[in-house]
């Protein structure tokens, strides 16, 4: 074959045209833009928040694309084409340096997000996200509106839950510490309330609990468990002060349940995705021993001793 300029230019462009037709134009012509059952259009302020998200390159670390085999944040909703019908550009992302945000809306209340944007390490001590304090509160608020709408109708549902329980939690907090602690405990299912920590306190277990506390809890509850962590100024109701809990019937079961399930409406997230059973018991016992100064570990009633116990 003799390669003339015509052969090169026309040949290359003809191939490109054919491929663009098949690989780009054909799927475009066949596109299904039917909104999915969770779709709703974004409000003006949410769209404005999305523009801030794009301007600051959030897409480089956060995907919005839940796959069939995901476990983490938002994994309950596997992405469908109809979820993206108003996205221009679409923000699927190509990296998960941070979490997937497809269903972030309503996972946390607004105040958690504000504290997190001011400095991500205030609420997530091991985070490697840059701080966004420089955006200013107005833009942070706008961005938060977009984040809280991620997941669209499902986000609205979760946000409804956050708003309802936030009101309740504020009321309880403002009624004073005695009522607040009672209110918190009463919302733990009865079974859990009466379970002491089934495992004995060990020095090694406390060290492990300390590490979990430093990785997950210290930003809000602070290094001495008094609820004065870095995030505290931004969060309302403020993080719980563990040091007032002595003699208030805080069982190992209550601690376990609150860590596992979180307290919706407050900045206390659930940790069931991140901490396995042993880690939750141990961080609970660390809090009980060091901050509450009263642990029910290994007290009655407990079943047959676990095989590993010393």
């Amino acid at each position, binding site marked *: 074959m003799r390669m003339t300029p015509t052969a090169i230019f026309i040949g290359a462009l003809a191939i490109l045209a054919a491929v663009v037709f098949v690989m780009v134009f054909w799927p475009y012509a066949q596109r299904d833009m039917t909104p999915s059952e969770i779709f709703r259009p974004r409000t003006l302020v949410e769209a404005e928040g999305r523009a801030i998200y794009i301007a600051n390159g959030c897409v480089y670390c956060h995907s919005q694309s839940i796959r069939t085999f995901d476990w983490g944040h938002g994994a309950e909703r596997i992405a469908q084409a109809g979820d993206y019908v108003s996205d*221009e550009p679409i923000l699927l992302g190509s990296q998960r340096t941070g979490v997937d945000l497809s269903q972030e809306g309503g996972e946390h209340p607004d105040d958690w997000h504000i504290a997190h944007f001011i400095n991500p390490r205030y609420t997530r001590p091991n985070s490697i996200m840059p701080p966004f304090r420089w955006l200013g509160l107005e833009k942070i608020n706008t961005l938060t509106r977009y984040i809280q709408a991620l997941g669209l109708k499902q986000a609205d549902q979760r946000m409804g839950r956050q708003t309802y329980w936030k009101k309740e939690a504020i009321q309880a907090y403002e009624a004073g510490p005695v009522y607040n602690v009672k209110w918190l405990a009463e919302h733990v299912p009865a079974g859990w309330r009466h379970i002491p920590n089934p495992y004995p306190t060990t020095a090694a277990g406390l060290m492990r609990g300390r590490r979990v506390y430093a990785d997950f809890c210290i930003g809000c509850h602070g290094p001495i468990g008094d609820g004065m962590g870095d995030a505290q100024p931004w969060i309302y109701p403020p993080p719980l002060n563990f040091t007032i809990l002595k003699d208030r019937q805080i069982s190992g079961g209550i601690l376990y349940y609150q860590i596992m399930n979180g307290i919706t409406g407050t900045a206390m997230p659930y940790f069931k995705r991140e901490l396995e059973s042993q880690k939750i018991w141990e961080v609970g016992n660390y809090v009980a021993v060091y901050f509450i100064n009263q642990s029910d570990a290994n007290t009655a009633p407990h079943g047959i001793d676990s095989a590993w116990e010393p």
Partner: protein
Amino acid sequence: MASSANNDRPNHRTARAFCLTSAFWFAAAASFGMIGAGYLIAPDFMANIGWLHFGKARPMHVNLMLFGFVTPGLLAAAFYYVPKLLRTALYSEKLGVFTAILWNITLPIGVVGLAQGRSQGREYAEWPWSVDMLIVVLFALVIFNLVMTVRRRLEPIIYVSIWYVCAAVILTGTTYCIGNVIWKPSTGALLGIPDAILLWFYGHNVFGLLLTPLGLGVAYYVLPLATRSPLYSHTLSLIGFWSLIVVYTHIGTHHLLQVPVPTWLKTIAIVDSVAMVIPVMVFLINIWYTVQGKLGTIHADIGAKFVFTGTIYYFFVNIQGSMMALPQVQRVTHFNNWVVGHAHIGVLGFAGVVAIGGIYYVLPKITGRPLYSRFLADLQYWLLLIGVTGFAVVLTIVGLIQGNAWLNGETVYRVLPEIHLYYILRASLGVFIISGAYIGLYNIFRTLYFNPGAATACE
């Protein structure tokens, strides 16, 4: 033929300008990369510098590497060898220099745009619309200059390097317009899932239809000439050229295997990703057989040494790429640092290293004097070699840790402390790369200006 044709002393101002452009933006882009790597280790280290946090440094780094360092670097050699191989002069050196100047005006506008947050939010298509338009103009100017040079050729046979250069600029000029949706200036995007399909068609073709053909063009020029060996096979050149254009253009959707796009599209992308071994191996067989037994000659010529090393990275990046397109593999590799490692092998290890090789090969022919310092060029070679190979190893390890942990149900947050060490290693290796970039800038600058000449050069 290179040295004997210097009688009429063409000044090669275009090639010179592009050499300098490439060297400068390599240093700049590596600096932004270093800043990004710093953020991953210590996110508060440049806290609250609103225009340069990770989300802004990253697109600056990527776009400057692609359009500031590698593309001008590969074009620098092309502006020298295209006229040379056609036994003519470049159609217009004035136009070429103007193109280089406009290039160096466009990139800072783009960087400032990204710093201001005017990104369009689509990977490799972030530049705001005004910069897109300037880049389209730049490609038009390059195409015009090269096409007119081809028309004025005295040599009837068009060598394979020129096929690749012509195809690269004309195809990328086209895909750049389509991929950046330049008819929609406000968003530069389509709506919904088709936007993802278009974006990755374009994004992958920045590598497939721009960096790769330009890089292969340089390899086809430098390696046979440096070893004084005739090209192994014209037939393989033909098969390699046409199969590259056919196959590479099909595979962009392999970025979307885990996304709700039509299954037939994914199937084509996977099949063609595996079929990439055809153009790749055809090229490598052709070029490696050409230089068979001449490794000593290659080693003696710093330009050829860079280019040959680039072909080895080309082998690795493509084998790896074909493998990553398999759905079972991608379940582990997607969304994590494995892909970042892959990108660095491709853009820096292959295209970037070949670009530097092309520059070092043509610079002495352009200036009529040896390189300012062969020692510095060798130092740069080893710094880049250690840096990019280290990147490949470290980022692949991180990717495997992340991908397997996630598959096993670990959250992203839980894995962060485990990979911290590797981010430090990665930044440390980045120091090698950034040092190589600045040393290269100095060496290329001194070769072009204030070059004391043969007396003090090592060669």
